[in-house]
């Protein structure tokens, strides 16, 4: 059984994600997961076994804070250092239209492995657009509410009280998306080259054309401007 498709270096490939995007993506992965597992120790009400991995609740709290600061830095590096990419990403999300809705409606079938005919997608398909909306929003809320909970005494009490449910809701939404995203970006057969796009930065040209026709045409195909 094949887990993820083999990386083929000898076929034409096109760039999907630049170095900074990939670096911050995996930096975010590591820091997010560290925050998640240290935080779950509290969310699950006394998950002692989970806290024990980090040396008890004080250790878990320390790791949580260090990882949270690192995560904030990673997000800031991504937004500032990759500003053009961020703008292009947001613009792509805002192109959410008919083809994306069709994609999302057909997605449950594709998710389970049925073959479906999907209309041309932009750089991010309907599902990826959804993830691109929910996860970053949740992470921004996580970061803001997290710092409020870290130093509650300098904030109004009402805001601190609001930060608790916001932190939990954002965590659950982000984690739910991360579970799906992690699976769809790797072991789901329909995703094919996506993993290599984020790991090596390039995807097979035919896959790009097949899965993200609009993006491929606009960037590398006939409609590519000035390249």
């Amino acid at each position, binding site marked *: *059984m094949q887990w993820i498709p083999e990386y083929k270096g000898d076929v034409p490939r096109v760039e999907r994600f630049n170095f900074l995007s990939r670096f911050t993506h995996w930096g975010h992965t590591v820091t997010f997961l560290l925050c998640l597992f240290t935080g779950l120790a509290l969310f699950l009400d006394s998950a002692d076994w989970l806290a024990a991995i980090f040396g008890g609740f004080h250790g878990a709290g320390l790791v949580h804070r260090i990882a949270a600061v690192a995560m904030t830095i990673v997000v800031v590096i991504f937004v500032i250092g990759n500003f053009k990419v961020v703008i292009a990403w947001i613009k792509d999300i805002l192109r959410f239209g008919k083809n994306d809705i069709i994609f999302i409606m057909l997605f449950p079938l*594709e998710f*389970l*492995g049925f073959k479906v005919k999907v209309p041309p997608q932009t750089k991010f398909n309907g599902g990826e657009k959804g993830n691109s909306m929910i996860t970053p929003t949740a992470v921004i809320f996580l970061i803001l509410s997290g710092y409020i909970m870290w130093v*509650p005494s300098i904030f109004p009490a009402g805001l601190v009280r609001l930060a608790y449910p916001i932190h939990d809701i954002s965590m659950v939404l982000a984690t739910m998306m991360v579970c799906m995203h992690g699976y769809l970006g790797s072991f*789901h057969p329909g995703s094919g080259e996506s993993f290599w796009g984020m790991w090596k930065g390039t995807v097979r040209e035919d896959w790009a054309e097949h899965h993200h026709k609009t993006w491929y045409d606009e960037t590398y195909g006939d409609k590519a401007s000035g390249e």
Partner: protein
Amino acid sequence: MAKMTNLYDVSKCTACRGCQVACKDWNQLPAVIEPFKGNYQTHEDTNGDTFTIVKFIEGEDPVDGVYWNFIKYQCMHCSDPACMSVCPQGAYSKTSWGATYHDPEKCIGCQYCTYACPFEIPKYRAREDKITKCTLCVDRVEEGLTPACARTCPTGALKFGERDELLQIAEERAKFLRANGFPRATIYGKVELGGLNKLYVLTDTPDKFDLPLDPKVPGQITFWQNWVQPYFGWLIPIALGGSAISFVTTRILANKNGDHTEGGHE
């Protein structure tokens, strides 16, 4: 066991702050020196090293004119404490006789309790990264002694005993005060939050003593505890389970179709 508590009769209190000192002494709490704020109150609020304070409240009533009240303030030892329900470590417990006890050994300093408490009583002690608050002198009471504050009170304003008996005394005292120059005299702690394990006889309405008229656990906290915490997290196992199902079905369907390419939609 019968509920044991303190009855504090504000009409007998001279604000000598002996209770404050006795509390510091018994609980071995270091002095906290706060700058002079223009009144007699020693501390703005209870803090990590001050479990009880005497508040001095100055105000002006449109009818009665200027008033000057004092009141001993500390943990109210609620019967269904919000601090206990939010604590992720189970550091809080109720003793059989009604004290809300906080175990510093279990505390991890998350401060959820501070913001869940309708009175914001649990306070953060930064040097130990722990929460502290009044224990109702659990260690003394369980050895048959009275709490340090009640024992030291020279005027009898603080009385320790069984809650039912103290409630009767409080009712009588409030009735007496109402008939003798304090028409708004009332009891606090009898019904508030389902009955506090702390009783007050007040010479005026609770708001004149800086006490909330209708104390409530903040709505954000109940929403968080009763809805978000128990139910919302299930989205995560659902996402994981869905992925696991997909992992199996995609491969079954691929084998059935004899499809060994990288798959995907056509």
